C-alpha cells in the first residue's frame, strides 16, 4: 500500500484508510478475539461437568449461538459494506464489525469532523479529518471497554448494592442521553441540505416499514435487517435526487 502518499489536505483518503498500520491493528483485534474464544472454550469444557452439562450440550450451545448469529452478522456486514467508502476496510472491520457499532461510531466520527469545521464524506473530508475522526471514535469507544474492565470486578462483589441506589437513574439517564444525542445529530444533518432531509426521512420511513412488517407478519429477522435495508433505501433516494438534479 502506498503510505508515502499521505497528505493532510488530500481529499483522496484511500492511501490513509488502507494504511498498513491500520490493517495490522485490525488483524491484531481479530486475533485477540479468537484467542479469547479459544481460552474460554477450554475453560467452559473443563467446568461443564460441575454444571451438569455434557460435552454434547456445550457443543450444542456453541452451535445454537452460531445459528442465532447468522442473521445479525449478515445485517452488520451489510451496514459495514455501506461504510467502506467512508472509513476503509480496516477501520470498518474493527469499529463497525467488532468492538463498536455503526450508530455510535458514525455519530462520533461526525462530531469529531465537526470540531474541525468539516463534514464526513463531503468536499471538506480530507485525510486529516479521517485521521482525527478515526482516532476520536476509537478512543471514545475505549470508554466502554475501560468501564467493563474496571466495573466488572466491582459489580461481581457488590453489584446488587450499587444497582439499588436509584432505579430511576438507571431508567431515565441512558434513554435521555441517547435520544438527546441522536435528535441533535439528526437535526444538524437536516440543516445541511434538502437532500439530507429527504434522505433521512427515507431512512426513517424504510425502518418504519421494516418494523411494522416485522411486527405484523411476525418476522423477527426483519428487525435485524431494518438498519441495513434502510441505509440502502435512503442512499438510493439520495443518489436519484442528486443525479436527477
Amino acid at each position, binding site marked *: 500500500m502506498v503510505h508515502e502518499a499521505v497528505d493532510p489536505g488530500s481529499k483522496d483518503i484511500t492511501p*490513509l484508510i488502507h494504511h498498513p498500520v491500520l490493517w495490522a491493528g485490525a488483524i491484531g483485534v481479530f486475533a485477540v478475539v479468537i484467542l479469547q474464544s479459544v481460552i474460554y472454550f477450554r475453560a467452559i469444557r473443563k467446568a461443564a461437568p460441575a454444571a451438569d452439562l455434557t460435552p454434547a450440550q456445550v457443543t450444542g450451545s456453541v452451535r445454537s449461538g452460531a445459528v442465532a448469529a447468522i442473521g445479525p452478522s449478515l445485517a452488520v456486514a451489510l451496514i459495514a459494506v455501506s461504510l467502506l467508502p467512508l472509513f476503509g476496510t480496516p477501520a470498518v472491520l474493527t469499529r463497525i464489525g467488532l468492538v463498536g457499532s455503526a450508530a455510535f461510531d458514525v455519530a462520533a466520527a461526525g462530531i469529531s469532523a465537526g470540531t474541525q469545521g468539516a463534514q464526513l464524506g463531503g468536499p471538506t473530508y480530507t485525510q486529516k479529518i479521517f485521521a482525527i475522526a478515526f482516532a476520536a471514535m476509537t478512543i471514545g469507544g475505549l470508554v466502554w471497554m475501560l468501564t467493563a474492565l474496571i466495573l466488572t470486578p466491582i459489580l461481581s462483589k457488590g453489584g446488587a448494592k450499587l444497582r439499588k441506589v436509584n432505579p430511576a437513574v438507571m431508567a431515565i439517564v441512558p434513554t435521555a442521553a441517547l435520544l438527546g444525542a441522536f435528535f441533535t445529530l439528526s437535526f444538524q444533518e437536516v440543516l445541511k441540505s434538502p437532500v439530507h432531509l429527504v434522505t433521512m426521512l427515507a431512512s426513517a420511513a424504510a425502518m418504519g416499514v421494516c418494523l411494522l412488517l416485522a411486527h405484523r407478519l411476525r418476522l423477527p429477522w426483519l428487525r435485524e435487517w431494518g438498519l441495513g435495508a434502510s441505509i440502502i433505501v435512503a442512499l438510493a433516494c439520495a443518489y436519484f435526487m442528486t443525479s436527477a438534479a
Partner: protein
Amino acid sequence: MSNKPSADTSEGFSAFDRTTSFWGPITLGLGLLISLAAALYAAFGTGLGVTPLELITAVGAVLATFGIIAVIEPVSYFPILGRSAMYQAFLIGNIANKLLPAAIVAQANLGEKPGTRRAELIAGSAIIGAVLVHITTLILLVGVLGTWLVGMLPAPLIATARTYILPAIFGAVLLQSVLAMKSRRTTIVAVVVAAAIVFLAVPLAPSLTYFATALAVILTIAISWFARVKTAPPTVTHAEETSAPDAAATN
C-alpha cells in the same frame, strides 16, 4: 451470581473463575491497547500534522456526548451477562443485536434461565459460536467481497454513499430508538431540547456548534429527570435495563 455450589462442583467452577478472571481482563485489555495504538498512530504517526489539542478537542466532544452512556451501558448489561461473559461481550461488540439473542436462544434450548452458573457457561458457549460466525462473515463479506465490490462501483455512487451516509443511518436509528425506549416524556423533552439547540441556540451563538450534542445530552437528562413521574417510581427489571440502552446506540 454464585448459587452456593456444593463441594464437588465448586472445584470445577473455581477453576473456571480463575481462568476467566485472569484471561478475560487480559484479552479485553489487549484489544483496548491495540485499538488505542492504531488510533494514536493514525493521528500522530502518519505525518498529517494533527496536534494533540485537535485530538483532545475531538475526543472531548465525543465523550461529552457519549461518555455517560459508555459508563452506564456496561453496568446495565452486567446482571444479564454475568462476570465472565462481560469480558467477551465488550471485546466483541454488537451485544444487544447479536450476543444476547444468541445466549438466550442457547439457554432456552437447554431450559435454563439467566443468573445461574449453568446459564453462565451456556451463554459463554453461545457467544463463542456467535463469534465464529461473525468473524467469518466479516472477513469474507466485508474484508474480501465488500472491498472488491466498492472498488467495482462507479465513482458517483461511492460519492453519494460517502456524502449522505449520516442521514441514511440517523433516520433509521432515530426511529428505532424512539420506539425501543417506549418513553414518550423523554422523547418529547429530547425533541424540544435538540430543536432549540440546533435551530435557535447554535445560529445565535455559533461557538456552541462543537458541543451542541453534548449540551443537548446534558439538558435532556436534567429536564427528563425533573419531569419524571415521581408518584410511581419505575421498577427496573433486567429486561428493561437491556432494552434501555439497547438497539440503537452502541455495541
